[in-house]
């Protein structure tokens, strides 16, 4: 039996719900190693450890599994402490220069919806900024001792990491579009998000994405992900927690919002899967509200949600020719060093060919309509 088989996933989901999950029911088909690999694949080691402790279950689970879950949970907490230390530094540096920034995705969720923030697995911390602040954020964080990892414009986000040796594995993704995927990048902008964002007690300068917006982002992110399994349990668990905490009025509001932003499909799919695994309560009225709209056939809509349409939007949104030139440079004429690294080549003789390839693939990618 595969460690990602429905049986194992159901088993983990039951344990997360606090329902009985007898290890014997997985035997003899699932080994301890397969089970742990499955937990890691779904990013649930931390939440599973806490769920077992909370519900007082799992006593007959193998010690080998419980010990590893506990140890990994401890590592997450240590990582959380280090990340939190840098988050305070970054947020204070931005705040001192009056730069608005919003905490979103995993970090925001961990702080607002998880009893033990360290239990929510995350590889990086996501911040959302206004696109007109890209330059100021870059210079502020460079001054504060951080390194900016390119690209900045091409991917609608840039990565920030401590410049000195310390802070290994600490990554901040600074986004200037709500999501990178062309389908969702323009769903709502920074000003929309900031208007509804809430303040954080622990971070004076930062705001946190509202629960409604974070729910939409969780659904869009899951749907638009091409790097991970779309059905990662931790993402569905996020959706479950976010939606459940909204209350009836909030749920109605977020479904209406999803409808108005043409996000019904990804929200409905996420909710239905979360409901199946975590028993998220979703009324038929709300599901009706999230019924998929007819596939938009309007060329203008399709164009605006394509890579080329987004490029056009970025072009007009960015201020000044400097930023626009950098955008085109990153898309079509990246540095020779980064091109060689990207294609795994050594020697500058490869560069003419790689530039031709880069420009042609860049144009082809932008022209692709989804």
């Amino acid at each position: 039996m595969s460690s990602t088989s429905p049986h194992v996933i159901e088993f983990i989901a039951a344990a997360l719900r606090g329902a009985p999950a007898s290890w014997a029911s997985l035997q003899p088909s699932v080994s301890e190693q397969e089970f742990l690999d499955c937990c890691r694949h779904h990013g649930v080691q931390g939440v599973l450890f806490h769920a077992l402790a909370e519900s007082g279950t799992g006593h007959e689970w193998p010690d080998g599994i419980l010990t590893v879950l506990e140890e990994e949970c401890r590592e997450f907490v240590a990582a959380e402490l280090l990340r939190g230390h840098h988050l305070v530094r970054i947020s204070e540096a931005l705040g001192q220069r009056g730069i608005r920034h919003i905490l979103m995705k995993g970090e925001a969720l961990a702080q607002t919806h998880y009893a033990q923030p360290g239990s929510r697995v995350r590889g990086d911390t996501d911040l959302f900024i206004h696109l007109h602040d890209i330059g100021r954020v870059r210079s502020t964080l460079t001054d504060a001792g951080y390194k900016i990892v390119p690209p900045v414009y091409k991917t609608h986000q840039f990565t920030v990491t401590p410049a000195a040796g310390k802070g290994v594995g600490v990554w901040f993704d600074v986004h200037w579009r709500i999501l990178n995927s062309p389908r969702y990048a323009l769903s709502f902008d920074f000003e929309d998000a900031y208007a509804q964002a809430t303040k954080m007690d622990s971070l004076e300068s930062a705001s946190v994405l509202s629960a409604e917006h974070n729910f939409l982002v969780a659904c869009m992110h899951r749907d638009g992900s091409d790097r991970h399994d779309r059905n990662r349990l931790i993402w569905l668990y996020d959706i479950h927690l976010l939606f459940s905490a909204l209350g009836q009025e909030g749920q109605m509001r977020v479904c209406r919002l999803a409808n108005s932003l043409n996000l019904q499909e990804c929200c409905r799919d996420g909710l239905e899967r979360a409901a199946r695994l975590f028993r998220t309560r979703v009324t038929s009225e709300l599901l009706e509200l999230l019924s998929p709209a007819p596939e938009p056939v309007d060329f203008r809509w399709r164009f605006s949600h394509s890579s080329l349409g987004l490029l056009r939007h970025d072009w007009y949104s960015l201020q000044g020719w400097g930023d626009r030139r950098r955008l085109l440079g990153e898309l079509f004429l990246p540095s020779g060093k980064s091109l060689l690294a990207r294609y795994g080549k050594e020697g500058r003789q490869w560069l003419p060919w790689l530039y031709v390839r880069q420009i042609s693939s860049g144009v082809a990618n932008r022209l692709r309509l989804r």
Partner: protein
Amino acid sequence: MKVKDGDQAPLNSKNFARDQIFELSDQVLSQEVRGETVLLDLASEKYFGLDPVATRVWQLLEAGMTLGDVFETLLGEFDVEPGQLEDDIHSLLVSLNEAGLIRPSARPVES
């Protein structure tokens, strides 16, 4: 033993004075999780786990208690032989000191 300013007591013997207090490194971040504590040393970026008893010691040191008060408090809270407790506290303090997480305070204790 009262520690004078600039005079650090060695931590390689059991001769801690009852009025000894310890300073926690300002490079240490801590978080309690289900009775245990994870310590992160920002200087080395190493982390340490404290079990529930060690967590309690850490809390009492953090509160600025003297070694004698730490000992008496734990003796009242846990079912343990005094000799065993003394050994455990001693080895914990040595470990914490070696890891750079605490150091004997140079601050004189008011008696």
